[in-house]
């Protein structure tokens, strides 16, 4: 409508130059490198110390071991980009497990329905958090702190306090299965949880980078007021993020239940901390507006490799906790420092 056609002051001589976007700056290269450097140093050191570390079998193990935390961390990435935090994810995982396990216990053979129901239960609880956060303007920290205990209590109530064994082979395969069966223990296959994690990560990347919704998540996290003034339905975005996160918790909870072949009301206690750690190591900002799925995956890998390596080396569990904390802090410090390279 307003083409500035007749205006010499506003001509378009710069257009051609701008069409060719300059590559990523050196700074941002350094930023993405920093984390990779941490990761590679860890891998090199571990493979020197432990001969088992670089074996194909162990690498497959590491990927399976990070899958559940990885799925949770991807969901957490959305919440943290939005400027929030979710402390309730561990409890939500437990809900998905017990809900589906009990459904299967009552009516065997409906594994698919039970699994969907377990995931949807978490989506619903995510929606409840989203509603509280957006409508009542309660800080996500507080809303999810409340949900942390509510959902845990619900899980105990649903399960009547006891674990429920899952016997359904399809369900169990989600946690313990492989893409193809191997005939001897030396052959390698891809574990089902890894496949689920890869799908979750890929879909999440598409949502975050390619859709309007993804853009809005970044915008709302970066500046909620400005987003509202730009005509974004901020409440809807918040709601959707918590529903998405709840759904991912549900998926992770199902994989976990399959892995431990039971719906346990006490499952996944404290998992939120590992997920948050992965996202933060991955370079997301707790103030919102910044963060990447790729960073989160790398963060989850760093934690996973560390856990695996420490076990391989037979490090005492007490030292493990200290080392884990130090590495997390060091990774974040390194990330921060490289942000300021000029």
């Amino acid at each position, binding site marked *: 409508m307003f083409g500035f056609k007749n205006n010499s002051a506003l001509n378009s001589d710069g257009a051609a130059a701008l069409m060719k976007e300059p590559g990523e700056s050196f700074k941002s290269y350094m930023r993405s490198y920093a984390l990779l*450097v*941490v990761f590679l*140093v*860890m891998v090199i*050191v571990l493979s020197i*110390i432990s001969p*088992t570390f670089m*074996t194909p*079998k*162990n690498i497959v*193990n590491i990927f*399976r*071991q990070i899958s*559940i935390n990885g799925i949770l961390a991807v969901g957490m990435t959305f919440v943290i980009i939005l400027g929030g935090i979710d402390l309730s994810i561990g409890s939500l995982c437990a809900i998905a497990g017990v809900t589906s396990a009990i459904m299967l216990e009552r009516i065997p053979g409906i594994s698919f329905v039970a699994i969907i129901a377990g995931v949807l239960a978490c989506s619903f609880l995510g929606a409840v958090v989203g509603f509280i956060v957006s409508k009542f303007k309660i800080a996500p920290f507080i809303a999810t702190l409340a949900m942390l205990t509510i959902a845990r209590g619900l899980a*105990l109530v649903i*399960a*009547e*306090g*006891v*674990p*429920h*064994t899952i016997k359904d082979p399809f369900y*169990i395969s989600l*946690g*313990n299965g492989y893409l193809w069966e191997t005939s001897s*223990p030396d052959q390698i296959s891809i574990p089902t949880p890894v496949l689920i994690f890869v799908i979750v990560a890929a879909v999440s990347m598409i949502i975050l980078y390619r859709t309007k919704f993804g853009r809005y998540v970044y915008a709302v996290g970066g500046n909620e007021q400005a987003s509202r003034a730009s005509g974004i339905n901020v409440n809807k975005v918040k709601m959707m993020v918590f529903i998405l996160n709840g759904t991912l918790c549900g998926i992770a909870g199902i994989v*976990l239940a399959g*892995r*431990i*072949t*039971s719906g*346990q*009301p*006490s*499952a996944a*206690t*404290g998992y939120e901390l590992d997920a948050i750690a992965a996202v933060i190591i991955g370079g997301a900002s707790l103030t919102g507006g910044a963060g990447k799925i790729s960073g989160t995956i790398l963060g989850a890998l760093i934690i996973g490799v560390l*856990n*695996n390596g*420490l*076990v*391989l*080396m*037979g*490090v*005492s569990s*007490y*030292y*493990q906790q200290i*080392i884990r904390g*130090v*590495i997390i802090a*060091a*990774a974040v*410090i*390194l990330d921060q*420092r*490289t942000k*300021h*390279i000029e």
Partner: protein
Amino acid sequence: MKNLFKVMALILALSMMLAACGNSAPSGQGGTSDSQASTLQDSDGGAEKVWKIGVTTQAWKHEFIKNLVNALKATDEQLKDVELTIIDSDDSVEKQLNDVDTLIAQGVDGIIMDANSFEGSSPAVEACKKAGIPLVELVAYTENEEYATFVGTDVKASGLMAGETIAELLGGKGKVLMIEGMMGHSGQVNRAAGITEALKKYPDIQMLDQQSGEWSKDKAMAVTENWLTKYPEIDAIVAHNDGMGLGAMNACVAAGRTEIKVVGIDGDTEALQGVIDGKYAASVLDDVWIEADLAVREMRDILNGAEPKKKIIVDYVPIKDAATAQKYLDQRK
């Protein structure tokens, strides 16, 4: 750029420290490391094969498990032909399963598992079977019974013994409260059943109330404090483990209600000391020293070709007097 290198150097240094810990920490705590093991082997002239055995336990933060780990380490030092790698599952079923995978990848000859969850730890049984290595379960077992041998106690027996001890202390008459473990935990289910069954035989003993202390001392203390205000007359409190029992004892002492007899299960150091001091009525001791020793020996025998015994049940020991308590306390030094 300078900064980046500085921080990278820091990370590298940390990794080295980590590596150093990896080698020194277990040996400092009485475990063995690769280098030590190999020197041992060399000094033996390589006559005997050293079996590498991976051990995964429940969280070391519980005193009972810590005793178990110490017992395992003692056994490890005692037996020259085995080498244990003991891993803390930190109460996470998922971590326990992951650790078992890691141990298998590492190429251990056999695995001893103190199962975190009756149902949840079952896939580890499957994993060991697939890898073709023997699995001995210790203290807590799994729903999947395809393991070689279970070494431990009959959990319900501990409940029965605790119930009997209470009845004996009260002379078959009185008001009793029960602090339960984490609801749904197999220990809680079986101990509750045992205690209830034992007390059923004494119609004059009345169970006033039962609540979960979630295996934790401070939770048990809070539960007891509430009871002390609610029930003017209490004769005894029985707890599913000594940690909670000690919490209950502390609450009673603080309230000046020392007439209440507190009985626990496990035989924790502090509980034994309490028995010696006369503050703690009794503990039902789960003799982890014998269990750990039996489990490692059973695994060695299986690896050396013996037929698995399938089930080795160790009896509980009631600790009601200072002399017995002192005997077990001395063993731990």
